[in-house]
């Protein structure tokens, strides 16, 4: 059976190409347009979250000098910053943005297999963002429950935004999950069904492997958040007692009885931990492709990398309770989760070794995407190592809810994926827009971001070891020695510096759109399919009249005996050149 996504184009199909501006760029079913829509929305809402973080950092660093942020604001800003960054920026940009753009192009398909549902996915995502943003403008403001939204405090009087903010937050999350499910069905089905001829699963670029497994994780894990959101909404609106215990609030007994807040925590983290890998696995994949391309070397241990992605994906479902060591759990339960947590370090470390070994004796081109990719290896290793500390129950107990935790997860799940996002944006920018970005601005952006984030998060680990707790509005000198407060101010300066240095990025992206050098089809001399399209940027349908045919894997860089230092996946084997080993030749 031939579907539109993998059929050679006949005359009839041309007629279905979008004609008007509206169908081309607004209600578009083209995966590339949807990807850009996703990306712009996600980056826009991410900017909001970054501004919020700058504001509460000002409060934390200089509690006496600024009166921008009230205690209620502080909790609301922290909550919104966390939720927006994790869900509405990272998840949406990695899967909705890059997943949409790269899957059909790298697999050699014309589009996603369900384009209409793909379009719907974006618009429901946009709706969820709008609902979330609305909570800034209602009375009481957005919820200040902390991004984990733990009951009972999330829906008890006294917490900011308990009237409307939390309801909008939960509704927005439910919408996001619907949007993600529609998108995710597309990504998985497209990878399974719409690969072009010759593109076997074990020839796919690692970017696709990362996005593919991350999407499966998302499809299985987001329902947990949906269950939690629905039940908490019912607790809040109808007065059921799923999670709400019998308690006093503001001196009065509530109508709730005997609900279990711990059940919420289990649900939340059953989603929350895979969520880390929903963000990390696409990053792992894309950074592998960037490293291989700019080091002109094949990725070291391709199959090991694929297996590691799959293994990490599987293991990520059995580690969730390491977020709950302080909830008073059975020590054996904690022991189990500490063990699984440490086991997950094995495939992850394999990946780090393989990235380094890919660089080893490579022909390294220090382009802007490559710089970001190498920066990622540093920040990720750093964040991963502190994760080993926190994975142990006895080490975690004193460090729980301190700045050590903040430092850890920003390093491993904030900075690292964002560095990969920048690497990916710079790497694929020439394909998306047809123009090169400005190299100098890009390098300024990289060095300011890398050094800035290090000076921002390294000191946090030290503050955490001192015992400085998170989620405090103002410490004052009663709680903290002067030296620690000085360090805290320094962190704020670094945070503002990092935020401001993103201006380089935005100027570069917007300026280059018009004034960048024309990029040509394959500026990085890369092997993967998206660089072999007949047009740059690729037109609707991606491949012109004939679909590509794949003859080799994605990493034929610097092959001995070849004229160029790369062989595109579409290149047939040459006469006389001895081809690999003979495995599977008799298929």
């Amino acid at each position, binding site marked *: *059976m031939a579907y539109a996504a993998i059929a050679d184009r006949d005359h009839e199909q041309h007629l279905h190409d979008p004609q008007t501006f509206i169908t081309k760029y607004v209600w578009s079913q083209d995966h590339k347009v949807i990807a850009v829509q996703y990306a712009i929305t996600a980056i826009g809402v991410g900017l909001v979250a970054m501004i919020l973080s700058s504001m509460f950092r000002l409060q934390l660093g200089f509690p006496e000098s600024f009166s921008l942020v009230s205690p209620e604001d502080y909790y609301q800003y922290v909550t919104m910053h966390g939720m927006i960054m994790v869900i509405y920026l990272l998840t949406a940009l990695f899967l909705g943005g890059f997943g949409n753009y790269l899957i059909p192009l790298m697999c050699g398909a014309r589009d996603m297999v369900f384009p209409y549902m793909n379009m719907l996915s974006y618009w429901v995502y946009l709706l969820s963002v709008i609902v979330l943003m609305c909570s800034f403008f209602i009375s009481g403001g957005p919820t200040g429950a902390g991004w984990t939204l733990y009951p009972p405090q999330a829906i008890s009087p006294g917490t900011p935004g308990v009237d409307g903010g939390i309801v909008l937050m939960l509704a927005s999350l439910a919408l996001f999950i619907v949007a993600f499910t529609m998108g995710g069905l597309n990504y998985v*089905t497209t990878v399974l069904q719409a690969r072009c*001829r010759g593109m*076997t699963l*074990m020839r796919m670029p690692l970017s696709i492997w990362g996005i593919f497994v991350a999407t499966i994780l998302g499809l299985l894990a987001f*329902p947990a958040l949906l269950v939690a959101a629905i039940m908490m909404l019912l607790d809040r609106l109808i007065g059921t007692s799923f999670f709400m215990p019998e308690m006093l609030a503001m001196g009065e007994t509530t109508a709730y009885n005997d609900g279990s807040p711990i059940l919420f925590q289990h649900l939340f983290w059953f989603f929350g931990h895979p969520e880390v890998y929903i963000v990390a696995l696409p990053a792992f994949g894309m950074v592998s492709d960037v490293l291989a391309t700019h080091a002109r070397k094949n990725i070291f241990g391709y199959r090991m990398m694929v297996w590691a992605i799959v293994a990490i994906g599987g293991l990520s479902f059995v580690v969730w309770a390491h977020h709950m060591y302080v909830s008073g759990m059975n020590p054996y339960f904690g022991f189990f989760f500490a063990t699984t947590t440490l086991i997950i370090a094995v495939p992850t470390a394999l990946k780090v070794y393989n990235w380094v070994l890919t660089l080893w004796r490579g022909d390294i081109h220090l382009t802007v995407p490559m710089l970001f990719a190498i920066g990622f290896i540093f920040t990720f290793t750093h964040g991963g190592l502190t994760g080993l500390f926190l994975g142990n129950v006895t080490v975690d107990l004193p460090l729980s809810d301190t700045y050590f935790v903040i430092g850890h997860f920003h390093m491993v799940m904030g900075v690292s994926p964002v560095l990969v996002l920048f690497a990916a944006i710079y790497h694929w920018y020439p394909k998306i827009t047809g123009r090169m970005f400005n190299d100098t601005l890009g390098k300024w952006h990289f060095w300011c971001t890398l050094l800035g984030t290090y000076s921002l998060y390294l000191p946090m680990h030290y503050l955490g070891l001192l015992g400085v707790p998170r989620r405090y509005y103002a410490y004052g000198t009663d709680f903290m020695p002067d030296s620690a407060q000085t360090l805290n101010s320094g962190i704020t300066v670094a945070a503002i510096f990092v935020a401001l240095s993103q201006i380089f990025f935005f100027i570069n992206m917007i300026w280059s759109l018009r004034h960048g050098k024309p990029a040509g089809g394959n500026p990085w001399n890369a092997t993967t399919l998206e660089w072999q399209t007949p047009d740059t940027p690729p037109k609707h349908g991606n491949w012109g009249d004939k679909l590509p045919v794949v003859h*080799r894997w994605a990493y034929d860089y610097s092959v001995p005996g070849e004229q160029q230092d790369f062989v595109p996946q579409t290149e047939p084997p040459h006469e006389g050149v001895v081809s690999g080993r003979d495995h599977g030749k008799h298929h």
Partner: protein
Amino acid sequence: MNVTVLFVALFGAILIWFALLRKLKSKSWLVKGVISEDGFAAVPPQRVGLWIFLGVVTSLFALFMIIYSERARFPDWRPIVDPQLLWFNTALLVVASLALQRARNAASRNALSSIRTNLSVGGIFTFGFLIGQVVAWRELTGTGHFFATNPADAFFYLLTGLHGLHLLGGLYVWAKTMTNAWREPDLDDIRPAAALQLSVQLCSFYWHYLLLLWLMLFYLLLST
């Protein structure tokens, strides 16, 4: 609880084993030239999409069932006497599922009139099931069991309601399939027939799944 875990494990194992692990053993990157993989390319994408969607639904309901069994252990849990009507409703859903299976068999023989009859029967009995569920809700509210009265009540409305919503979604697709089935058949073109056959197959698969899900939910509701 055990049943749920088994259910999830089984579904997950089947998916992972067939979709992934078998392929991971191949070393196709060592070979140059065009090679093709067997298996998935022959399956219509709609069917794969439905499998994956049912994976998501399985995850959703499995989590609800686990939370249900955990919450039922708390001292404030007051088990409810489930309305006897549920047995009758279950029978209606079984008939609906059987009728859709017959429609599916008819579709593989291209027997259009039989497809039409059985599709209609399946839909009507499904509507009957949904109406029956609403009547069961009325029965419960009539005896003073409202949504927030007790977690047992809340879960009853929540689980039956969500299951009903999934059936409603199925009925939307069913309605589209019905209009396809009633369109005048064009004997020259084989594609509409194949499309109708696929729709009927997917509908029946979805109905069997929702029947199985209902049986599990019903068992859970009866047992606590």
